[in-house]
C-alpha cells in the first residue's frame, strides 16, 4: 500500500507542478480567481475531513482491539463524513457553474480582462485537482463500505485486520492531499467579499 501511495504522490505531483508554474506566471490572475472560491465552505470541508480521519483512526484502533461493533460504527461515521464532504463539494461546483466560472463551456470573466486567461486556467486546475480528489473520495467511500461489510461478517480479529489498516492508510492519504489543496487553492489571499 505504501508503494501504491508513492505512485499517487507522483500522480498529484504533476498537477502541483502545473499549479506552481501557473501561480508563478499569472500571480495576480490566480489571486483574483482564488477570491471566487468560498473559503468558508472549503474550511468546513477541511474540518469534516479532519474529523473523518480521526474516526478512521479510531476504527483501525477498534479493529486492532477486536471490537467489532465499535469498528463498524466508526467506519459508518467515516463514510457519512466523506459523503458530507462530497455534498458540500457538489454544492460548490454548482455555484461555480451558476457564476459562469466553469472553464471551457460556461466561463464569463467580468473583472479585469487581462486576468481572464490566467483565471480560467486557475479554475481549470481547480476543477481538475479537486475533481480528481473527489474521485479518490468516491473510491475511498466504496472501500469503507466494503470494509464495513467484512467487519460485520466478523472477518477481522486482533491478529488479522490488514484490510482495515490499508483502507485507513488510503483514507488518510486522500485527506492529506486535501490539506495541501485547501490552502493552495482557497487561501491565497483574504477574500474580499
Amino acid at each position, binding site marked *: 500500500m505504501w*508503494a*501504491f501511495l*508513492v*505512485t*499517487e504522490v*507522483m*500522480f*498529484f*505531483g*504533476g*498537477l502541483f*507542478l*502545473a499549479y506552481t*508554474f*501557473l501561480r508563478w*506566471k*499569472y500571480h495576480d490572475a490566480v489571486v483574483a480567481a482564488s477570491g471566487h472560491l468560498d473559503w468558508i465552505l472549503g474550511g468546513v470541508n477541511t474540518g469534516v475531513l479532519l474529523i473523518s480521519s480521526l474516526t478512521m483512526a479510531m476504527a483501525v484502533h477498534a479493529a486492532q482491539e477486536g471490537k467489532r461493533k465499535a469498528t463498524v460504527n466508526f467506519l459508518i461515521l467515516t463514510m457519512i463524513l466523506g459523503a458530507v464532504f462530497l455534498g458540500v463539494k457538489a454544492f460548490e461546483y454548482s455555484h461555480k457553474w451558476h457564476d459562469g466560472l466553469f*472553464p*471551457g*463551456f460556461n466561463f464569463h470573466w467580468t473583472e479585469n480582462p487581462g486576468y481572464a*486567461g*490566467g483565471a*480560467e*486556467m486557475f479554475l*481549470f*486546475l481547480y476543477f*481538475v485537482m479537486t475533481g*480528481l480528489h473527489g474521485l479518490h473520495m468516491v473510491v475511498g467511500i466504496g472501500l469503507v463500505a466494503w470494509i464495513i461489510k467484512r467487519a460485520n461478517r466478523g472477518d477481522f480479529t486482533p491478529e488479522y485486520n490488514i484490510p482495515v489498516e490499508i483502507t485507513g492508510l488510503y483514507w488518510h492519504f486522500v485527506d492529506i492531499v486535501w490539506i495541501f489543496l485547501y490552502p493552495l487553492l482557497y487561501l491565497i489571499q483574504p477574500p474580499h467579499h
Partner: protein
Amino acid sequence: MPGATNGVFEMPKTTYINAQEGIKSWLLTGDHKRIAILYLISISIFFALGGIFAALIRIELLTPGPDLEAEMYNRAFTAHGIVMVFMFLIPAIPAVLGNFLLPIMIGARDLAFPKVNLLSWYLYMIGGLLTLSAMLMGGVDTGWTFYTPYSTSYSQSYVFLTGLGIFIMGFSSITTGLNFVITTHKMRAPGMTWSRLPLFVWSQYATSLVMLLGTPVIAITVVLLAAERVFGVGVFNPNLGGDPVLFQHLFWFYSHPAVYIMVLPAMGVISELIAAFSRRRVFGYSFVAFSSLAIAIFGFLVWGHHLFVSGQSAYAGIIFSLLSFIVAIPSAVKVFNWTTTLYKGSISYETPMLYALAFIGLFAIGGLTGLFCAALGLDVHITDTYFIIAHFHYVMVGATVIAYLGGIHYWWPKMTGRTYPEFWGKLSAMLIYVGFNLTFFPQFILGYLGMPRRYHVYPPEYQVLNVLSTAGASVLAIGFMMPVFYLLWSLKFGPVAGPNPWGAKGLEWETASPPPTLNFDATPIVTEEAYAYDAEAEESAYQAALQQAKHAK
C-alpha cells in the same frame, strides 16, 4: 555442448497449461504463467501491427518523392511509435518474461496479487484496443510525443481517444510494478537472500520502481492534455497563456525513464544468458545489481536533455547534459561486467547466446551514440534528425527487442516444454543482426548529413542511404517472421525439453517444463548463490567427451 538432451524426456502430466481446460479458464486465470502467455500473444500481435506501420514508413522513404500523402505519413509514423513504445516495448519483457519468471526465480508460488495481475492484462487490452480503435477511425498525426500546442489545438485527429488508451495502459504498468515490488520483498523462498537474487529479478525490481514513480506523471499529463482539448483551456497552449515547454518537461519526466523501463529488463535477460552460456558466475554480481538501481535513479534526472533546443535555460542545459553523461557509467559497468564474464568461460553459441552477443554490440553503439546526443553542443546539430532515430532504435530494438527474443528462445523450453529447432533459431538471429544494422546504421550518416525526421520527402542525394535502410528493413522483417513459424511448429513437433535443457542454474530450471500451476512440488530451499557455475569443470568434461568421441571413431 553441455547439457544437451537426446529426446529421452517425457512431458509432465499436469502442467499449468493443461491444469484447467477452456478459454474461460484462461481469461479468468490468476496464474502468473498463464497471464504471461496472454501477454505474449497480445504483445506479439501488436508488435506485428507496429511492424506494418514501420514498413509503410520505409516504403515511403524508398524514393525521395511523395508516395503517401504527408498527412497519411504523419499518421503512419505516429502509429508506429505509439504501438511500439506503449504497446510493445514497455510491457514486453516485464509483462511476458517477468510475469512468467519472477515468481519462479525467487521460489514463490505466484505473484503477491494474482487478481491484480489479471486486472493489469485487462487494463492493457482495454487501453490497447481503445488506442487501436482511434487508429482505425483515422489515427493520430502528432507523433508519439504529442507535443503541444499542436496536439491540443491544431491536430484534427483522435488525440483524446489515443490519450485515454495510453492513460489506461499506464495503470496496467503501475499494477504490474506494484506486484513485482511487493512479491520481491515478501515472497522469496527460504534462503533466497537479496544477494542471491538472479540479476533478472534485480533488474525487474529496478524497472518496477521506475514504473511506480514515472507512470503516474504521464497519466496526469495525458489527463491535462485531454482536458485541454475538451475544455479549450490552455495550460500548454501559448495562445491562451500556457506554456508548451511545461508539457515537454512533464512528458519527458516519464518518457525518458520509460527508456529504462524498456532497457533495464533487457539487461536482466542478458545477465542470465551470458552466465548460462559461458558457465560462469556473472562478474561483479553486486555491481551489476546496483547499477540497475543507479540507472533507475539517475534516469529520473536527465529528462531535460530532450529539451536542449526548447528554450530551457542554458544552465539547466549544462546540468542535464552532465547528468546524462553520468547515466553512461552504470550502463558501461554492465557491459564491462558481461564481457569479463565471458573471459575464461566455457562458451557455447546457441541461439540465445547469439542474441546476447548481438545485444552487447548493438547496445554499445546505441549507448555511445547516446553520448553524442547528451553533449549539449553536438545535440543542437543532430536534434530531430535521423541520427536520433538511429540512436534510439539501436537502444530500443538493438537492445530491448534483441534481448526479448533472446529471452523468449532461452525460456521457450520452460514455457512450452519443447525445444525449438536450433538451426532456424541461429539463422533468424543472424538475419536480424544483419538486417538491423543495415537498416539503422545508414540513418546515423543520414542524420549527421542533416536529414530531418518526420518528413515524407527528402532531397535526392539522400536516396542511396535510404534505399540501403529500406533493404535492411526487409531483411529484418524476414528475420522477425521466422521465429513465429518455427516456434509455433515446435509447440507440436519440437523435441521434449525436460526440466533443464541448457544445464543452467536458477530455480526456474529445477522445476518441470512446463511448470505445474503452483510452480514447485515443494517450496524450494536456496543454499547457494546465483550462477554457481563451474566453468573449468564444464570445460574439462567437454574436452573429455570430445576425446572419447575421437577414440570411438
